[in-house]
């Protein structure tokens, strides 16, 4: 299994790879786990926001948000592309030709990174091989059966985690991936807890906002620690705890993750009719 393959900046590829098992496909609910994650990710985007968009699930999430509740959202891609109208067809990378045609602007990497560093990008999406209790991400060094595995690296992930107002992470929920402490902080979350980011010199208005997994959604408390905020339909709390590498705290207002709405599903399926990213 290639789940430690890390991630291209702001992608959830490792996640989709991990969902390659038959058990991960549609089990009679009318949507796949990935489709639920895409819908949950889309709801992290508010109308009019500037979004650092990743490929795969985040790319679909941006599209769903644009077509439903956030038609005014603006998408920024680290290769230099800015889009107010999502590309009309399935993308495999952010530089695929359909993502350039009809763009708002095709510029340089610094053109978009400058907006990010100014603090004007509201939300950025990331995938990760590992996330820890305080939302730190690792996409540089993994391990498999005790052996160190060199993952592809940061890409733009470190930049986004440092500089965007909110960071949303998507990944598969297993003990190997939700760990007490990441082996290597590629992309800083809340470090070791409260006030850590400010002590490092990171911008005041930045940091992890949500971790969307195959089992639920985690958010961060005032101390900077991740806690379970919503649980996906048909998932048991014990399963979430058993698959988390630290004693996971649960929000007093724990709710069920709302399933994808019909309009959200139709938007994703229109752009990815064969479920390349959500059903494979």
């Amino acid at each position, binding site marked *: 299994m290639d789940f430690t393959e890390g991630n291209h900046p702001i992608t959830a590829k490792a996640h989709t790879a991990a969902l390659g098992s038959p058990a991960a496909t549609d089990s009679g609910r009318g949507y796949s786990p990935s489709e639920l994650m895409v819908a949950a990710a889309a709801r992290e985007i508010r109308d009019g926001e500037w979004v650092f968009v990743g490929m795969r699930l985040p790319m679909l999430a941006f599209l769903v948000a644009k077509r439903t509740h956030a038609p005014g959202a603006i998408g920024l891609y680290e290769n230099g592309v800015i889009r107010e109208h999502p590309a009309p067809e399935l993308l495999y990378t952010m*530089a695929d030709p359909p993502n350039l045609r009809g763009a708002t602007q095709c510029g340089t*990497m610094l053109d978009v*990174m400058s907006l990010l560093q100014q603090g004007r990008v509201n939300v950025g999406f990331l995938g990760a091989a590992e996330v820890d209790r305080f939302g730190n991400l690792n996409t*540089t060094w993994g391990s498999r059966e005790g052996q160190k595995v060199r993952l592809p690296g940061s890409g*733009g992930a470190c*930049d986004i985690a440092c500089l965007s107002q909110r960071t949303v992470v998507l990944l598969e929920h297993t003990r190997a991936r939700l760990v007490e402490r990441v082996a290597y902080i590629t992309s800083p979350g809340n470090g070791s807890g409260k006030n*850590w980011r400010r002590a490092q*010199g990171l911008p005041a208005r930045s940091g992890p906002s949500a971790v969307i997994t195959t089992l639920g959604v985690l958010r961060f408390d005032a101390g900077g620690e991740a806690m379970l905020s919503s649980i996906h339909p048909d998932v048991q709390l014990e399963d979430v705890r058993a698959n988390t590498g630290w004693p996971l705290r649960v929000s007093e207002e724990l709710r069920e993750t709302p399933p994808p709405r019909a309009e959200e599903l139709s938007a994703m399926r229109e752009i990815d009719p064969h479920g390349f990213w959500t059903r494979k």
Partner: protein
Amino acid sequence: MSNAAPDRTSKMMSMQQAVAQHVPDGASVLLGAQLEQMIPFAAGHEMIRQRKRNLALVGPISDILFDQMIGAGCVARVQAAWVGNVSAGMGYCFRRAIEQSVPRAVEMVDYSNFTLALVLHAGALGVPFLPTYSTLGSDLLKSNGEMREFGSPFSGEKLVAVPALTPDVAVIHAQRADKHGNTHIWGNLGVAVDGARAAKKVIVVVEEIVEPEVIASDPNRTVIPGFLVTAVVHEPRGAHPSPVQGYYGRDHAFFHQYHEQSRKLEDFQKWLDRWVLGIRSRGEYVEQLGECRVESLGVREHAYSAPADFGY
């Protein structure tokens, strides 16, 4: 006053010549400046064929080209944000090199995309470093070994100093140029503008050679002025399997096939023999791709921009 262009000799040469003359062993080489678009695969493959050694590769994400050059033993050092296969996952040659020193040890200097862009921007500006907030608090900052935390001389706040780099050679794939190297690129530019300015030499690889008048008709699209260019190589389909906007699309299947065929060392050797070492030129590579595959990647629907009026 005359508008005639100064009399310059043509900078055109074959890929074989350009690589032989301008990419010495041990050179630092910028490749993949436009991220997943216009990756100069033909140039990288020629470096492999010429058995270049001890190269220091520079680039933001590189897609599979860095992986191939590492697997072929050309590389001593990589200064990048990400090495792998963008649509398929891991770079297996990269992993073998880092984890097992196969076929040789490679030093990886981890950057993020933004800081890698700043390395080249500083080089282009001619200053020793540039400040950023990015990477603060990360292990990337600690393990990179080149970036340094410092206090702002104005406010005292923490910043990271990203050191400048002036690569020995930048290889930039583009849509079209004239024989003097004046180069039009459209689409996402990534780090190409700074890369070409920072580098000591620039090799431009293009789909089309056009008359100087065509380039001069739209100077805003001239991303690289010819006087910065050392060599111009006309190499149609030289970026395959990556896309060139307006010329051909991305060969997604090729990336996925490479992923499967590079998982094991012996399979990678076969892949390398088939697609690089066993052929002499990009022409033969395109022939091997086959007419059908080449055709299927062609532009299905042209979308020309409206002309801009430079009249007065």
